[in-house]
């Protein structure tokens, strides 16, 4: 069974008097352990697709099955629970809590998962930070870290609950090319360890790391191709 399955999903936004079809009949399946890049120009619908895959939004029509469960009928609280357990988010702008240490940022999903032991949270958060190479900087605040380090804290936060799916929305958009490569290498490694990684990007260089590329245009899926990743297979 596929981890993610979209069945003829349509998303319509109402902007003033006009209905905008951000997604128009998209069907796709993504298996466990895949590393998929979703590409497209701005306005192509790739962000909308990302929001639906991340349970931040619900389809207008069609069905979205996450791990075999339909998302459409779930309440806001149930969606929050799904995001907490099944999905890790990585954003272009990092979205770390300011004036909050790296460790506490990474502990956040554990807090909402109901891990009540502070020692247990600290142990798992430290483990996740060590995994992304920041084991020495757990007490740093976001503004004391470089962009690449902040994004790695965000990745540690996405990993800490061990979700099956990692959703990365332009994760290298705010980083220089050297740091971008480091972050992509980390995502690639995670996918090799069995995590499903879905990457949304408009940069072909970044999409080249993935093993499968979906191309969106005007809300429709226009291309779905497997490829040999150019780098990072190490």
């Amino acid at each position, binding site marked *: 069974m596929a981890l993610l399955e979209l069945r003829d999903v349509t998303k319509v936004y109402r902007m003033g008097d006009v209905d905008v079809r951000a997604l128009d009949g998209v069907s796709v399946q993504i298996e466990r352990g895949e590393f998929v890049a979703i590409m497209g120009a701005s306005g192509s619908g790739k962000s909308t697709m990302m*929001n639906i895959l*991340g349970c*931040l*939004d619900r389809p207008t029509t069609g069905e979205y099955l996450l791990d075999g469960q339909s998302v459409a009928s779930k309440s*806001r*609280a149930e969606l*929050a*629970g799904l*995001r*907490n*357990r099944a999905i890790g*988010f990585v*954003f272009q702008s990092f*979205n*770390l*809590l300011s*004036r909050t240490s790296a460790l506490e940022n990474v502990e*956040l*999903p554990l*807090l*909402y*998962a*109901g891990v*009540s032991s502070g020692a247990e949270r600290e142990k798992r958060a430290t483990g996740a930070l060590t995994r992304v190479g920041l084991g020495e900087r757990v007490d740093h605040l976001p503004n004391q870290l470089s962009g690449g380090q902040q994004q790695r804290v965000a990745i540690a*936060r996405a990993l800490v*609950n061990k979700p099956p799916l990692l959703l990365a929305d332009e994760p290298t958009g705010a980083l220089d090319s050297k740091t971008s490569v480091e972050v992509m290498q980390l995502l690639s490694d995670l996918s090799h360890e069995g995590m499903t990684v879905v990457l949304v990007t408009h940069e072909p260089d970044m999409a080249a790391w993935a093993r499968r590329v979906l191309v969106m245009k005007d809300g429709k899926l226009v291309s779905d191709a497997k490829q040999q990743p150019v780098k990072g297979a190490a």
Partner: protein
Amino acid sequence: MGPLQIFRLALKALRRNLLRSFLTALGIIIGVAAVIAMVSIGEGAKQQVEASFASMGTNLLIVMPGSSMSGGARGGFGSQPTLTRDDLKAISTELTMVDAAAPDLRTGAQLQSEEQNWATSVHGTTPSFFRIRKWNAARGATLTDSDIDSGAKVVVLGATVAEKLFGANAEALGQLVRIKGVPFQVVGVLERKGQSANGQDNDDTALVPLSTFLSRLSPALGAFLPGPILVSAVSGEAVPRAQKQVTDLLRERHRIAVGADDDFNIRNLAEVASAQQQGADTLSSLLASIAAVSLLVGGIGIMNIMLVSVTERTREIGIRMAVGATPGQVLAQFLSEALTLSLLGGLIGVGAGVLIAQQLSAGFGWPLLIRTDVIFIATAFSGLVGVGFGLYPALKASRMDPITALRFE
């Protein structure tokens, strides 16, 4: 997330904007302090009124003799003696709602000890008087039935009179006091009673047996008593029925025809007391409502700041929702911030209020009554204000769309 973690989260968020948090809480601090200070002073005033009436006896009825008519000029009540000693006896023995009755005849007189003299009001009465007024002897004894029967020349002094005649430390018991030239032996000194409700010194008084008073200090009027009769009802609730019984009895004894005016007048002190009590109650509730308004203003301050805070932290809310915070958990987080602000403000306000009340009371000499139930209610109310005014901002936070919140700049 447990309540303790939510509370810690709230404390952390409040510490981040310490000055702002303090200023917001200041509204509640002032409100609660005002409630505590005002209510304490109001309750103090109320208690003072209660105490002064309790010292007088709230079950008390005063039966005044009738008014005189002389050449068309009508005298006030008491100008015409209409009450007799038999009336007194009938009131004290025949009526079920009456606990005791005693005459309260008065004359002004100069009292002389060997060293000093002092003008005061001398009362002629019976032992029941002490029971009715709840006056007890601090030293010696009060008047006895045998003093009345034998017309003994004995006197019971109020604390002020004893002090004026014999000095603060000297023993007055057994000494001789001359009243209108007649020597009386001091058999008792009363407990200090303080001021009455209308400011008279209850301790500036001397009491002698009724029989001695009539034969030695005041012109005799045959069987008539030249003064009022004090009556105490069996209980506070029985006062109206006792008044009715006394009225019926006296009308019958004085053979007053149906429809004719009474030749006496009964004053009900409970009515006076309840009027003064109402005055104090009004004062108390007026002060409390002013204080409640300031607490309300404090609550609006909390709502204002929480709304600003929710808008400022839109992105934080988006992040929390993205990593799995449910709407309920976001609601709880912001609600507990408002609750923490208001409860901490409330606790500080209680301290400040008690302090202010004590300062005011010491500075102006106002009576003070700090009631623990008022402190509990004020603290609980400040918590309620926090929840009430924090609810809307917290709901607003919990209803945010995570996608929009995450994009908020």
